[in-house]
């Protein structure tokens, strides 16, 4: 497309955690000038240990927010918060249960101590209770530190498949057994792009440009030259190492976190009504969500499923 | 010039006729009951006239300090009233430091030096350190503590602390001096000297002094009038008047009149002790 004549639109994108490879696509679009090409002057605002940036979206301090999974998006409908999901970068939630190598079957986890965060307990764990008969009694708090899990051989813990297993492998010196919840029926999208309803209505073009550029960023991050993006990530978060980044990217590819299923036909960012409904029904059954919520308000398919950037994927 | 002219009279329980001028302040039927039920004063009638040196004498715990605090306005009577001369009230509005108070305890600020403690009332009136220094040093000189100007209260002996307190009360040259046993902790020689110094101050400043003491001798030597309080609940049980023009010096102290007055006062005190 021809370069737009007008000045680039200033937008702020808030992530939900410190800079890491899980945000790679966005950094890629920033680093390689894709956002600029789409007439956007993007500021990436990394989140902190607490999901702080969330409330900044409805009050207009940021324009786009990297949502965790669909549960929170649906909660927004319940709480009448005027935001919605406009794209889903992860087809699978990277949420994983990490167990010691002696565990081979998902069912075995029911007898283990599980380190689960409070947020996890309020969300997917309720589904585990309902669908697999897990119990709250076996839970101990997960504080984003794997040491208790490593010490207690009879335990498992939550994590992101792209992150925690790395630390466990490095420090524990063993390859843990991983159970990706998505593969066991927790079929939410993750790492979504959320924005205000008002923006969707008044400036759909801006939203479209941001979504498209981000999707292209993700294709390039996964399949192209991601050196500049990684440098940027490391600059924002000096703690991160090349090995960690490599680990994350490998896991995202291996498990098809970003690019799998519907993306083959619809492109990265894909969402479908069917999957949304299926997820909602499961959550209602698990009593994580109440019945009767108009989930259609929580997302829109207006900006995705257009196959943008598909040509960047390896054949 | 020695004048024997002494004009003493014991007017038991009778307030003295007020021929010689309106009183500076007058307590009428004053009573003071504390929260714990103790009645310190009951039916106290007394007046203080301008330029007088009045001593209060009475058994321990009879309410002398309480009476002094009432006069100073530090506590309110539970009964009766306290009236000030109108001129005085007006003047009070204009001047600060109209009252100097020597508490029964030294009541020094532990965080300030001797100099700082004596400076306090002047400082509160806005007189700076430099400006106040001559007056402060004069007061310290008077009580013999000039050498200790930089010492802190905890480094002083009991009598020295009390002397700082006296210096502090004198430094502002107040028009009314209320002193609660100021010399009790002092040796006799220092005490005699300070007695004379106080009389000197009284005469020079023409101020009014209300003075609590336990020493009959001191009260006779110093005062122009002595009020003897009876035991709790306190009130005036006897009054003695001494000619204020009588020069006070060693000759007076050894005179038979002095001895007679002392005996009389002692007797009044003894009678006050077992008043009903």
């Amino acid at each position, binding site marked *: 497309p021809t370069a737009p004549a007008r000045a680039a639109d200033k937008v702020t994108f808030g992530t939900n955690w410190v800079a890491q490879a899980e945000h790679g696509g966005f950094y890629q679009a920033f680093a390689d000038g894709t956002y600029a090409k789409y007439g956007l002057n993007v500021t990436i605002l990394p989140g902190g240990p607490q999901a702080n940036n969330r409330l900044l979206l409805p009050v207009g301090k940021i324009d786009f927010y990297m949502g965790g999974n669909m549960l929170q998006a649906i*909660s927004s409908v319940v709480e009448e*918060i005027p935001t919605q999901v406009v794209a889903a970068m992860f087809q699978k939630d990277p949420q994983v249960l990490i167990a010691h190598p002696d565990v081979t079957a998902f069912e075995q986890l029911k007898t283990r101590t599980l380190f689960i965060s409070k947020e996890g307990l309020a969300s997917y764990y309720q589904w585990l209770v309902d669908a697999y008969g897990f119990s709250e009694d076996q839970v101990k708090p997960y504080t984003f530190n794997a040491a*208790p899990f490593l010490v207690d051989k009879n335990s498992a813990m939550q994590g992101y498949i792209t992150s925690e297993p790395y630390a466990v492998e490095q420090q524990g010196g063993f390859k843990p057994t991983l159970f990706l919840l998505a593969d066991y029926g927790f079929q939410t999208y993750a790492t979504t792009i959320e924005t205000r309803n008002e923006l969707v209505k008044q400036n759909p073009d801006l939203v479209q440009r941001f979504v498209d550029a981000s999707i292209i960023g993700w294709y390039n991050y996964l399949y192209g030259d991601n050196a500049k993006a990684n440098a940027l990530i490391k600059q924002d978060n000096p703690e991160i190492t090349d090995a960690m980044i490599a680990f994350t990217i490998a896991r995202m590819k291996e498990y098809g976190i970003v690019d799998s299923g519907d993306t083959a036909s619809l492109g990265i960012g894909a969402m479908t009504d069917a999957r949304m409904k299926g997820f909602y029904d499961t959550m209602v059954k698990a009593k994580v969500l109440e019945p009767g919520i108009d989930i259609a308000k929580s997302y829109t398919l207006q900006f995705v499923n257009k196959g943008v950037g598909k040509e960047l994927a390896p054949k | 010039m020695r004048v024997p002219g002494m004009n003493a009279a014991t007017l038991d329980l009778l307030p003295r006729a007020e021929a010689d001028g309106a009183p500076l302040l007058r307590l009428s039927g004053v009573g003071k009951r504390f929260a714990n039920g103790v009645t310190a004063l009951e039916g106290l009638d007394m007046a203080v006239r301008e330029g007088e040196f009045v001593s209060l004498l009475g058994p321990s715990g009879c309410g002398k300090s309480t009476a002094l605090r009432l006069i100073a306005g530090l506590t309110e009577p539970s009964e009766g009233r306290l009236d000030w001369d109108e001129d005085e009230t007006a003047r009070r509005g204009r001047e600060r430091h109209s009252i100097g108070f020597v508490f029964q305890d030294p009541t020094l600020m532990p965080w300030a030096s001797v100099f700082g403690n004596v400076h306090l009332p002047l400082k509160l009136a806005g007189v700076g350190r430099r400006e106040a220094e001559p007056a402060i040093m004069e007061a310290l000189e008077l009580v013999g503590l000039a050498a200790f100007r930089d010492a802190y209260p905890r480094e002083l002996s009991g009598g020295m602390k009390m002397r700082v307190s006296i210096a502090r009360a004198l430094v502002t040259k107040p028009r009314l001096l209320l002193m609660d046993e100021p010399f009790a902790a002092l040796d006799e020689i220092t005490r005699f000297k300070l007695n004379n110094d106080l009389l000197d101050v009284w005469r020079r400043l023409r101020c009014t002094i209300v003075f609590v003491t336990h020493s009959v001798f001191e009260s006779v030597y110093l005062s122009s009038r002595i009020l003897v309080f009876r035991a709790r609940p306190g009130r005036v049980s006897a009054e003695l008047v001494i000619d204020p023009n009588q020069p006070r010096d060693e000759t007076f102290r050894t005179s038979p009149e002095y001895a007679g007055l002392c005996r009389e006062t002692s007797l009044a005190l003894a009678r006050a002790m077992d008043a009903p």
Partner: protein
Amino acid sequence: MSTSPLRWLLPFGVLAALILAWAAVVKLNNLPPYVLPAPGKVLETLIEDRAVLFASMLVTLKTTVIALLLAVAGGAALALLFASARIVEFSLFPIAVILQVTPVIAVAPLMLIYLSTDAAVLVCAWIVAFFPVLSNTTLGLKSVDPNLRDLFRLSGATRWQTLAQLKLPTALPYFLGGLRIAGGLALIGAVVGEIAAGSAGQGSGLAFRIVESAYRLNIPRLFAALLLISLTGILIYAGLSLLSWLVLRRWHESELGGRA
């Protein structure tokens, strides 16, 4: 203590004014509930969810009270130890300071390895609350009237007697001051401890309700939980102030008010 009704009404008046101001801010700026819920809405939520919230409050309150008791015991005991000799104080105070400044959130996982969840929460709350008691009591124990100390020495008082009958009464106003600070801190400590190391799900304290409400963006409920915490804090403070008044009213300036 004056018994004028004003004395008791005014604090409520001020609180009421504050709540009205809050309601006005919400109304005038047309703030949505997820930014700042109106007080009415918070109250509504509080009443609606009372079963869950009060149950959680009891859990947190229990932790707070136990932590406070332990903080009092620990802080006072350490203060006594420190008072025994200047050198002990000098040697051990750095360790107490280290304990005080250790961020509970950082060490909670370590505690979870060796302690049960409840114990870990208690330790967190304790760490936050013990220091004011320790510090103030130490200060109090050192502020003994030197003359009285001499008197005790002369009367052949044992170390223990001097402690119990001289140093402790002297330290009492300071200790009670430390206690009033520790009361609130024990409560925050309990909440932070719950966040850092506490169990979640059913039967858990207010911290979980807060995290859960935040996760679900149910801000009115978050405020209802905060309201309960504030109420608990005020109750604890009022209780400790009353205790202080009962103990000191006969002799200490701070509780005597001006003399008549």
